[in-house]
């Protein structure tokens, strides 16, 4: 099983960062790679089990299911139902933890998945260095570092 772990620090309190990322249908509002998103069946985006169908700027379509969301612990866990990436059993978690020393936020974005062995290095690099770090870079810009 392949594993991705990417983490960063954003210069804002965790409640402000969480307000920006908790909306499971809100990726286009903060992640530069996501063009549009909708929740299937008109469900609320914080209803566990809801499915988001979104389109990347490169045209790829991905469907993901919300598995867990906690406003208390500030994490969101989801799985991929359909994607052109060639991954199986993909589960990812975005988690925020306060940095009390300086009112910053520590963000971790992890994923685990199965894939063809020869594609693992490329996928880990694209997901971690591309998608996750790309989101972090956008958040750091939005919150001034």
């Amino acid at each position, binding site marked *: 099983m392949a594993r991705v772990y990417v*983490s*960063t*620090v954003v210069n804002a309190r965790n409640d402000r960062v969480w307000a920006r990322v908790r909306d499971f249908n809100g990726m286009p509002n903060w992640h530069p790679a996501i063009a549009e998103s909708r929740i299937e069946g008109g469900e609320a985006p914080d209803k566990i089990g809801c499915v988001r169908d979104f389109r990347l700027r490169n045209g790829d379509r991905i469907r993901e299911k919300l598995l867990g969301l906690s406003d208390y612990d500030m994490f969101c866990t989801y799985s991929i139902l359909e994607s052109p990436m060639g991954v199986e059993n993909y589960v990812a978690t975005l988690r925020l933890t*306060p940095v*009390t*020393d*300086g009112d*910053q936020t*520590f963000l971790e974005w992890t994923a685990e998945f199965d894939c063809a062995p020869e594609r693992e290095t490329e996928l880990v690099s694209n997901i971690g260095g591309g998608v996750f*770090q790309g989101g972090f870079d956008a958040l750091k810009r939005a919150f001034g570092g």
Partner: protein
Amino acid sequence: MPHVVRSAILNAPTDVVWNVLRDFNGYDRWHPAIATSTIERAQASDKVGCVRRVKLSDGSELREQLLALSDLEQTCSYCLLDTPIPLFNYVAHVRLLPVTDGDRTFWHWESRFTTRPEDARRLTEMVSEQIYKAGFDAVRAHLKLAA
């Protein structure tokens, strides 16, 4: 039950910070509140269950037991056995996580304890500021890191 949580970012890789923190008998080398430290019965300081006897800079003594230590997770847990202050059932957890964006360290330090209601506020403040916050700053100084 008071719950103290403090965390900080250190400008060093987790391996460097962990190398300092994992020595349960080494806090006297960097923490300003701790004057001397010894492990009872000459046990190794990474033997889970070992007890450290610590003399504080004010001369008082306390005993703490190592409950868990993981080099893989870079975590450790310990509890107070004997203490000169009314801090009871004190269990603390130290956890390091890598900040991959910049090869830095997220250091999380938390504890729970019981005490008399009238002491809760003062002791929470003391643990939070004089032990944890001072500890972050002391390790930064020890490793000669910029804040």
